[in-house]
């Protein structure tokens, strides 16, 4: 490269490197070892040298941003058939953003953990359909080279609540009147998808609304699929109280039942996912014990925490349920934090 090359050309140059990598597709269902083996052979054949012991040339394992090769396929699932149905309910409906993730790859939760990046959806303004924040299903944990990240593999449906602004909808004459603008709700969606390497991907998502106010592509099973995903979203539960004490670089989290509906699940698989980074040491094992009828969870503090937070919001997860009368494996609670100011 020319020493005096301007920055814009440098960007173009680096994008070209990326697109060259597109040629290296990794077929579905291959183990990492197999992929590596095949690439090793390929490299060796290509160079026609006896270099079987040479490590795989890393760029061969990278792929670029060509949407045709996306590791994640996105499908929009409106929870109602159209604007009229939403309005007749309570003016609120869900749109599921289903991500089908290629085998061995994963995308991230709102708190990605030690690395990674949460998925973002930037909605365009619509005259009468107003989006809310993403409701995130409870995540799984991933071990990436010895550090811990939070996210999803296989499939996840992020849930976005929409509100119909009634007056505005009326003015737009959506109820089948002639000349009504059909429109669409649309957004730019970005995510980072990782295996042993990470690729930023993006797409434009569009949910078209036809002249009579119906969502195009609506399926009768969408409402049920949204329900299923809503089940995975952590619930706010009044039956448990939680607080945390900060001492000696550890959070001691104390969960206390407030009603007789609260039930202490098996302590072996309880895990606390804070909603934001930088609070706890994500890699540390979390040990839960029952003391009297309280549950105590001790978690090391992140070395990047500079001062004691007043409160922490996060998700308590179990394979069982936090309540007796219904299955709630994931509950979201806000803990007040006491203890000495944490200064490093």
């Amino acid at each position, binding site marked *: 490269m020319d020493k005096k090359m301007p920055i814009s050309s440098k960007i173009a140059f680096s994008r070209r490197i990326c697109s060259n990598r597109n040629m290296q597709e990794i077929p579905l269902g291959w183990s990492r070892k197999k992929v590596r083996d095949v690439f090793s052979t390929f490299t060796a054949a290509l160079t026609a040298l006896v270099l079987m012991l040479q490590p795989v040339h*890393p760029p061969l394992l990278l792929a670029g941003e060509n949407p045709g090769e996306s590791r994640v396929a996105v499908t929009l699932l409106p929870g109602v058939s159209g604007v009229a149905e939403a309005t007749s309910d309570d003016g609120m409906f869900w749109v599921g953003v289903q991500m089908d993730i290629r085998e061995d790859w994963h995308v991230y939760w709102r708190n990605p953990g030690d*690395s990674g990046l949460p998925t973002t959806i930037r909605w365009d303004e619509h005259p009468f359909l107003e989006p809310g924040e993403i409701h995130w299903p409870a995540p799984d944990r991933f071990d990436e080279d010895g550090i811990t990240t939070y996210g999803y593999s296989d499939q996840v449906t992020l849930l976005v609540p929409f509100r119909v602004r009634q007056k505005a909808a009326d003015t737009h004459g959506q109820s089948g009147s002639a000349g009504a603008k059909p429109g669409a709700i649309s957004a730019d969606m970005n995510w*980072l998808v990782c295996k042993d390497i*990470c690729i930023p991907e993006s797409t434009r998502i569009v949910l078209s609304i036809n002249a009579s106010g119906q969502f195009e592509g609506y399926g009768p099973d969408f409402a049920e699929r949204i329900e299923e995903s809503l089940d995975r979203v952590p619930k706010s539960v009044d039956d448990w109280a939680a607080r945390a004490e900060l001492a000696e670089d550890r959070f001691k989290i104390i969960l206390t039942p407030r009603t007789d509906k609260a039930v202490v699940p098996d302590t072996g698989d309880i895990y606390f996912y804070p909603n934001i980074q930088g609070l706890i040491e994500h890699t540390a094992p979390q040990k839960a014990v029952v003391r009297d009828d309280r549950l105590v969870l001790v978690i090391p503090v992140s*070395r*990047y925490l*500079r001062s004691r937070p007043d409160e922490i919001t996060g998700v308590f997860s179990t394979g069982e349920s936090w309540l007796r009368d219904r299955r709630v494996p994931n509950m979201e609670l806000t803990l007040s934090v006491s203890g000495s100011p944490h200064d490093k």
Partner: protein
Amino acid sequence: MKTQISYLTILLVAAFMVASVHAEENKRPEIGNKAPDFTLPDASGENHTLSDYEGKFVVLEWLNHECPFVLKHYATGNMQMLQESYRDKGVVWFSIISSAPGKQGYMEPDETRKVTREKQAKPSAVLLDPEGKVGRTYDARVTPHIYIIDPQGMLVYMGAIDDRPTTNHDDVEGARNFVSEALDLLLEGRDVDASTYQPYGCTVKY
């Protein structure tokens, strides 16, 4: 009897070695503590020992040129600009590659020199840590992960390069850059405001 004693000696020495290696591993760098010393070769084969640079500020930048978070800072010229402008002010800047052979970001020395030239990167040296020893000692988790060491050899900053944990090249402009913020204060003889900030990036490919 003599054989027994020498066996015992070997055992004791072995036990001591295991213990000291273990202690070394547990010693994570902390702000305000002495930064762990190390010696690593650069891409030209020349060894660099951290303690030889006492008297100067030293920046350690964990590097993997194929990581999209790193690419954001190199493709926009941001990293090169930081390296060049602070080296002009007497700061020593080491980019460290801890990727293991065969993993993403690993490069042989000649390729490292070539890529450094192509990217017009301006570190004092690119150090090669294919065994990940120095990376693990510093608990470097992501690329880019930044550490700043003061002229007394104390760790004064560790964490993110800036406050925009994204891969979007447009986010470089307008970001709060913790490295330049810290170095500007330090070079004026003042203390760093934010001595740690949650790092972001790709995992280090140990």
